[in-house]
């Protein structure tokens, strides 16, 4: 374990960004999102949750898949280049890290998504502990320890220092590259901070949220429940929850007409959108109730069914913060536990 003075972090960013692309939580026009580090980046480690999760660094909101040139009615297809250089994601929180685990299940399962895989292989994550968890956080429910997030490097802010510990070879390598700026430290130096965080976690309003009754085997019971009828009503059918969610991975593949042909790109899509499943001859989810249900059933039932019980929710609480209609996964889980009572 090494440490670096907080005031020297700028030096660290410079050092890393000189070699690799460095993504940091950056404040722009009042909001914090991940951004490529540059000279005028306002790094923001205080904001707990970036608006968009770190998902976008591995599965960008839009990315080109391939280009087709059309000349004289003949096509030439060129696949977009895969990520082939290492990059660093600095300040990723435990929940987002868990989100990436969820995405791995999707994109790294057969057939492997090479675009995602290339990013995963080249991405180095520096995970940052959450010193001040917020009321909407419930990551502990999904087994995340926000005080000790296992990225390639685990970082903890404590007092005047940022402590870093490598968990992987990639992490080791990065730390050794930065050795000129760091000094040795002992694990015990962060113990108090971790204990403090653990105490706060216990006090969070959602700390005791129970997932009892949710697993891959309850499709029929949950699917047919009348509870949805009530729950979906406020939903505006926007995609906020989906787009801020670290695990939502639905996408659309679209054409863009360029001067010489077509650029095929994929972009995030939302199962909350009314045209998500629309096709020429019908739509298998015609009501918002169905679409709302699909999102939560997928996260809490279908996904665990296919992935050894792993939920497709990490308890980051972004939907709690951001849903314009205040409908969120907590309300869904609670509504069902109420029904059980």
């Amino acid at each position, binding site marked *: 374990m090494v440490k670096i003075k907080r005031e020297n972090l700028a030096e660290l960013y410079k050092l890393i960004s000189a070699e690799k692309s460095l993504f940091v939580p950056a404040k722009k026009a009042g909001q914090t999102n991940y951004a490529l580090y540059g000279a005028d980046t306002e790094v923001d480690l205080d904001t707990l949750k970036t608006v968009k999760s770190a998902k976008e660094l591995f599965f960008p909101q839009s990315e080109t898949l391939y280009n087709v040139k*059309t*000349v*004289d*009615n003949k096509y030439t297809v060129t696949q977009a280049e895969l990520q082939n250089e290492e990059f660093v994601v600095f300040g990723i929180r435990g929940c987002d890290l868990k989100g990436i685990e969820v995405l791995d299940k999707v994109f790294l399962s057969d057939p492997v998504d090479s675009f995602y895989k290339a990013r995963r292989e080249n991405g180095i994550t520096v995970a940052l502990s959450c010193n001040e968890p917020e009321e909407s956080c419930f990551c502990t429910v999904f087994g995340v320890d926000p005080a000790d997030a296992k990225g390639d490097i685990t970082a903890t802010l404590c007092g005047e220092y940022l402590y870093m510990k490598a968990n992987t070879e990639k992490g080791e390598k990065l730390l050794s590259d930065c050795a000129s700026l760091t000094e040795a430290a002992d694990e015990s130096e962060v113990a108090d901070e971790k204990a403090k965080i653990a105490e706060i976690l216990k006090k969070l309003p959602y700390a005791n949220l129970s997932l009892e009754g949710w697993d891959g085997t309850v499709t029929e019971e949950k699917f047919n429940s009348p509870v949805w009828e009530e729950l979906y009503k406020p939903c505006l059918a926007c995609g906020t929850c989906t787009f801020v969610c670290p695990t939502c991975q639905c996408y659309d593949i679209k054409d863009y*007409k360029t*001067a010489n042909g077509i650029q095929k790109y994929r972009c995030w899509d939302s199962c909350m959108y009314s045209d998500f499943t*629309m*096709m020429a*001859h*019908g*739509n298998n989810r*015609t009501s918002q109730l169905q679409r709302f249900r699909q999102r939560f059933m997928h996260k809490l039932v279908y996904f665990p069914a296919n992935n050894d019980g792993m939920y497709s929710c990490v308890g980051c609480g972004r939907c709690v913060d951001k849903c314009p209609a205040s409908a969120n996964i907590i309300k869904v889980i609670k509504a069902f536990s109420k029904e059980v009572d």
Partner: protein
Amino acid sequence: MHGIGVFVCHCGSNIAATVDVEKVVEMAKLEPGVVHAEEYQYMCSEAGQEKIATAIREKNLKGIVVCSCSPRMHEATFRKCAEKAGINPYMVEIANIREQCSWIHKDVEEGTEKAVILTRAAIAKVNLNTSLVPGESLVTKRALVIGGGIAGIQTALDIADAGYEVDIVEKTPSIGGKMSQLDKTFPTLDCSACILTPKMVDAAAHEKITLYTYSEVEKVSGFVGDFTVEIRKKARYVNMDKCTGCGVCMEKCPSKKAPSEFNAGLNNRTAIYTPFAQAIPNVPVIDPNQCTKLKTGKCGVCEKFCQAGAIDYTQQDEIVTQKYGAIVVATGFDVIKLDNYDEYAYSQSKDVITSLELERIMNAAGPTKGHLERMSDGKHPKNIVFIQCVGSRCNDSKGKPYCSKICCMYTAKHAMLIRDKYPDVNVTVFYIDVRTPGKNFDEFYRRAVEEYGVNYVKGQVGKVTPEPDGSLTVHGVDLLENKQLKVSADMVVLAAAIEPNPAVRKIATMLTASIDTNNFLTEAHPKLRPVESPTAGVFLSGVCQGPKDIPETVSQAGAAAIKVVGLLAKDKLLTNPCTAKPDELRCNGCSVCANVCPYGAISYEDKLINDHGVRETRRVAAVNSALCQGCGACTVACPSGVMDLQGFSNRQIIAEVDAICR
């Protein structure tokens, strides 16, 4: 769409001189969907059209692009050609590579590049064309002629003689127009009234003609074959059925201060009046601005004297609504206001007059009973100066840029008549050019100069100054002698420019007929469709379209009439299929489209909609395609793009934009 044919026209050298047509063909072939491209000398020729038809049949083309002149020129030609060859006529697009390319660019490379892009845009559009089928609409077998001058009368007579009902709307109390004010006509010098009045009588007597005098068109709606027009019959205050036309009322009327319109304001008329003795109908009107009874409630002299009891002070304007299949505009002209021509002292001296005023002075029914007199003192003038092109052929904003066309000839006529009747009078004419293209025109002018000794001076007049002795000094130049001239005159006659009757603006707006910068109505094609307005069902007759003399007016009137007759002879018309069409599946029923529709073509209905398996009754827009004229206002008002315009669809225009900006 797959299966597009491209046909590039050389238009002789009109296109081929600045556009490398072979290159255009070659580039077109590379475009997606294009399976055939060729070029030819004249695509619009029989042989060119045959090439198109052959390719359509042999290559099984679904749509074609013709790269040629403006679609305003030959779109219809190529549509017909396509239809004959078996594809829908609306699967044709024109790339305008002549008017908008070869004719304005000199550089071949530049011209070719642009032609290629324009072709590409047309291909992109035709890609999204769909077959359209015109609807049918019935034709109301009745025509409206707006304006009761010689143009209107002749048009009405010709239409009526062909057996169709015609209404003439004339805003003054009598038909007859400007021609009725004229004394003699050139170049034959026959009496204007003698040849006009029989036509006026014929019109009044014709069983197929209805006259609405002292009336104005208030509102026009509908479209070719089915116009609905509201006509305001202004209150005459004289019952037309009762009036015998005896004229006692006019003799007795104590209010005699209104300037006589007929006599060009040279003398006065009574408040109750007919414009002139031969007026048709011979029923007077009461001028409400002059009548003491109507203004103050006192007087009532005319009512007292009217034996027939025809006077009715309570009469109100009346709105008549009538349906027409065709409308002819024959609103004629006015002499321009001379406010801008102070240098000629028109407003300062009563002896500076316009030619139309001279016309009244020379006329036996005029203010001077036909005697040539100065309006200031009634003296017989010895020296008369005519000044030509007052306000015509003017480059500045004072006057009109065009030639008024009739002035040279009527001035020659006036000069000749004066010299003939009063050989003691010296006549001098200042002119820029003397324009005499017309049958017997030049001979006429030469007689004026050679036989009648009219003094023609080529040159302009800078100023006319009234002298204390009542005479006028004309300061001019003689360009041939290259010297300044000062001519003393007793009377100066200005050949003032003519302009379209100011009322035409309002009428054109109502008819949605277009107007040029000088307020002359625009013809559908300056050469090939000179009597039709671009608005279907609206025709042009007389000076409202451009300056012309009486014989030209009469022949144009006949031409307009035959166009009307040709239209009215049809029982049904095909309507423009490029109309708005809503996508019911996505319509919100918000009414925003109906709010902007100028034709009231959009209505709403509650309809059972099957939206991808969900059935519900929704309020959706419906377009009456017979009423829709295809302007597209609704398509932009509709935020969700549900309303689209067939033939100019959103995606078609977007495709054109894409192709151009590629």
